[in-house]
């Protein structure tokens, strides 16, 4: 019996070796994992259990030039739901009944993939006390649903200045790819249009972060670390809330006025007021307008459709910088300055207006707006005062004959066809047409490619193919008032620090310095003053306390009623403000746009604002 030990000695040794080998292999492996690569695994464990949740910084406020708030923030009680609730039919039905929203709308909001995974989705903003109380009492029936306080934009003045301010919304996937939005994540609220968009980088602020520990199913357990958000900076705009309000009301009154004059298609209008010495924009109005509050917490599909419908007149567009119009007789001052500069006319040079102008040949005849008998013998000065087309046909025809597109080149010096560079998104440059443009534009229509005398003649009275924005018109009149220097229009005045002290102050900047003689500016100035005293603008400015230099315009647009224009600056002796007003399909400039300009100038100059009835049938 005892010999098995001797015989099997090697076998016991082998078993011992196997045991040692097993424990040895495990030990080596543990050494390599725990001691050599321990840090990597610690990082993986941290990554497992820690989640970073961002806390939005309050956006900076937007103030008017006097410090009156235009956009602020307010806390809102929002009903939010975790992303996982989208598959819980019963829960969605209960929510639908409680909130009075339909199930599909709730599901759409909850399943938004545009949000970071852990951020709960906003289902409803500004929940009523009843809803909040009900949710608190019936917590168990609404798993994943809670009430949170979220910051929302507040508009203390309602829709006033909506186009300048712009609206905010969730960042789009297209935006996130832009270099401007580096560091943003899906779900962030950003400025979409207007000042909110333009000054996004200062308004946004720095997010705060909260590191939370979660368990294996993602339930938060506790807060590990917290960094407070840094609020965005307040900005001060050059806008004067009172002037802005008056400008918007003046446009509404002008539309009513147009309707009572039987121009029943009038639905849209725009106005701009700038400081001629600094380029500061004091008011910028565009009708129809919209309510920026519709965008809070995400605009509904129905509202979005309504605001973008074909027959809506596109209320989201800021017509002052984005709409293009023929500027009609308001452009005569530029044609006039070009004529004076090139010596083809002078203040008292005499012209003959018979109502019909056949200088380019019988078959190319054109009419002055005063067809019956015309203006008779008329000086250049009088041509502006009475807005005689014939005088400017002659000047324009001279430019055609001289060649070299001098009129267009000169107009570009005054900013026509060029961006003013205003600090608002979406500005368009307009069009100052020339032969090259026409050939390219009509490349598929060989018979229309040639630049004709009539093309230049049409430009000379602000018609034909020329197009400009109301802002360009206001800027050019501001340039006339400011000794020929056009300041860059801007809406930002200051950026404030957290103490309310300015950290950035906008300095006036010259945008265009056209080649012009002070004497020639004086010729135009005298004529523009006479317009409101005895000419086409006299009716609108009867009894006005300040002397105003202005010009009416009535633009022909194919297939539409005439567009009414008025451009002006005041006070005439020491000009401070320039204004441009356009009423789409409003009829005559003197009778519809003129009174609106008068009201805006009243507000600018601190005069009592009164609406006057004016009659003028000139163009």
């Amino acid at each position: 019996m005892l010999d098995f030990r001797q015989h099997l000695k090697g076998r016991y040794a082998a078993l011992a070796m196997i045991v040692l080998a097993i424990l040895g292999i495990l030990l080596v492996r543990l050494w390599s994992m725990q001691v050599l690569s321990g840090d990597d695994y610690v990082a993986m464990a941290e990554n497992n259990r820690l989640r970073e949740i961002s806390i939005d910084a309050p956006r900076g406020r937007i103030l008017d030039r006097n410090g009156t708030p235009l956009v602020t923030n307010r806390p809102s009680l929002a009903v939010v739901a975790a992303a996982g609730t989208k598959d819980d039919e019963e829960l969605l039905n209960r929510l639908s009944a409680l909130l009075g929203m339909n199930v599909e709308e709730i599901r759409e909001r909850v399943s938004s993939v545009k949000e970071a995974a852990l951020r709960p989705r906003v289902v409803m903003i500004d929940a009523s006390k009843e809803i909040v109380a009900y949710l608190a009492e019936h917590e168990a029936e609404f798993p994943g649903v809670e009430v949170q306080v979220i910051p929302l934009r507040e508009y203390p003045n309602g829709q006033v200045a909506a186009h300048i301010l712009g609206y905010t919304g969730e960042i789009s996937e297209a935006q996130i790819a832009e270099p401007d939005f580096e560091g943003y994540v899906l779900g962030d609220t950003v400025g979409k249009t207007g000042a909110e968009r333009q000054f996004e980088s200062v308004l946004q602020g720095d997010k705060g972060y909260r590191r939370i520990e979660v368990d294996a199913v993602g339930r938060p357990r506790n807060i590990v670390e917290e960094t407070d958000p840094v609020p965005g900076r307040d900005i001060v705009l050059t806008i004067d809330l009172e002037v802005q309000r008056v400008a918007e009301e003046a446009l509404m009154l002008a539309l009513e006025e147009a309707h009572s004059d039987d121009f029943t298609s009038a639905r849209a209008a725009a106005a701009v007021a700038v400081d001629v010495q600094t380029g500061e924009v004091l008011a910028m109005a565009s009708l129809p307008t919209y309510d920026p509050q519709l965008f809070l917490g995400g605009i509904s599909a129905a509202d979005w459709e309504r605001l973008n419908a074909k027959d809506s007149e596109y209320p989201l567009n800021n017509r002052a910088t984005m709409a293009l119009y023929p500027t009609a007789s308001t452009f005569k001052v530029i044609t006039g300055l070009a004529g004076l500069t090139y010596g083809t006319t002078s203040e008292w040079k005499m012209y003959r207006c018979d109502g019909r102008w056949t200088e380019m040949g019988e078959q190319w005849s054109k009419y002055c707006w005063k067809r019956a008998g015309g203006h008779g013998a008329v000086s250049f000065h009088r041509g502006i005062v009475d807005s005689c087309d014939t005088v400017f046909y002659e000047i324009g025809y001279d430019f055609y004959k001289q060649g070299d597109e001098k009129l267009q080149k000169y107009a570009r010096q005054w900013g026509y066809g060029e961006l003013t560079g205003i600090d608002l998104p979406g500005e368009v440059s307009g069009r100052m047409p020339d032969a090259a443009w026409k050939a390219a534009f009509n490349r598929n229509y060989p018979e229309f490619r040639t630049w004709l005398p009539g093309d230049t003649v049409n430009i000379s009275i602000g018609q034909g193919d020329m197009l400009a924005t109301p802002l360009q018109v206001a800027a050019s009149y501001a340039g006339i008032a400011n000794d020929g220097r056009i300041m860059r229009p801007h809406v930002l005045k200051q950026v404030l620090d957290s103490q309310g002290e300015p950290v950035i102050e906008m300095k006036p900047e010259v945008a265009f310095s056209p080649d012009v003689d002070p004497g020639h500016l004086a010729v135009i100035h005298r004529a523009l003053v006479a317009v409101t005293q005895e000419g086409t603008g006299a009716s609108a400015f009867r009894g006005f306390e300040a002397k105003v230099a202005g010009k009416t315009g009535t633009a022909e647009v194919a297939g539409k009623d005439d567009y009414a224009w008025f451009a002006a600056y005041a006070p005439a002796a020491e000009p401070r403000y320039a204004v441009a007003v356009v009423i789409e399909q409003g009829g005559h400039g003197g009778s519809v746009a003129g009174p609106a300009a008068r009201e805006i100038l009243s507000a600018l100059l601190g005069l009592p604002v009164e609406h006057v009835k004016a009659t003028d049938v000139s163009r």
Partner: protein
Amino acid sequence: MRIGDDGFRRLMNVPLLVSVALLVLYGSVMVQSATSGMAGGGGMFYRHLFGLGLGFVLLVVAWLIDYSKFAGWIGPLIFLNAFLILSPRIPGLGATAKGATSWLEIAGVRLFQPSEPAKLVTIVIMAAVIAQYKGRIEQPRDVAKILGILAIPLGLILLQPDLGTGLVFVAITMGMLLVGGLKVKWFVAFGLTVVLGLGLLLPIDAGLDAMAGKDVALKEYQKNRLLVFVDSSRDPKGAGYNLAQSKIAIGSGGLSGQGLGSGTQGNLNFLPERHTDFIFSVLGEELGFLGAALLLGLYLVLMITALEISVQSKDLFGSLIAAGLISMWAFQVLENVGMTIGLMPITGIPLPFMSFGSSAMITNLAGTGMLLSVWARRRRT
């Protein structure tokens, strides 16, 4: 031979009892830590202590019984073993967990897993059979007989189906055949068969499934476990998830661990089965490399002491029982710790003396009692 003839000193084996006592103490601390954050964790800890208590009673009983009496009971033991393994199949008594019908249940209360005590019974059977060859196993006929007897419990356990426990049976038998004198050429032949078999297993299984139109041999989850072992990124939220989370837990323990009760992987539920199969992951995370080395050190003392008992046995039968227990523990440690660190495929094998689970605890303590029984009746020098 009566025990106690030479007094208490002959009865006692201090290194064995101390290493086992330290292991169950260590295990209790880890089970307490792992279950403290779990729903119903307090109750689990008391169940663990109850299993320990019962286990020590059985340890003493096995110590006192003369193991050599079992040598003549091969036939009845084979029947007992088969009954144990089949008992969960008795209608009204069995329960299925994780795909295997391996629990005895009465009136909805899970009692124990008969496959755990079946390991001990298998050890005794195989020891009795192998001891008959007196340390020389050469003839194919003899090998066939031994394998045939192993095939009874192994086949039944694979039908549950419980691949992991089946592998334990194989490991036990191989260890005992090593000490029992099986010629080396046979081990080489077994090794080649296993390598070839594994190489052909999956293709053959796929072929069988395709012919029958359903899972015939390997279940889908078993296949997954095998495949995940090859490539753990294969299914990070499914079968590979357990392995990945376990490795993160152990690795992040570093040299000295996150501190007892402070492991985030365990406490935040990233670790599955953390009080049973993955108890070592909790230990690795909370006590680090030092804690793991201490555990492996205790196993070393346990198994070397058991080997000493095996060598000192008065007969080959007792020596083989000890060799079987060593093989069982060594394999379970290798498999359980190995799977938590990605060295072995994931199976549901508990870590001896450590994992929560009374069936395994009682079995291991009773096995310790058998070792003491062999020791107490050792040869006289």
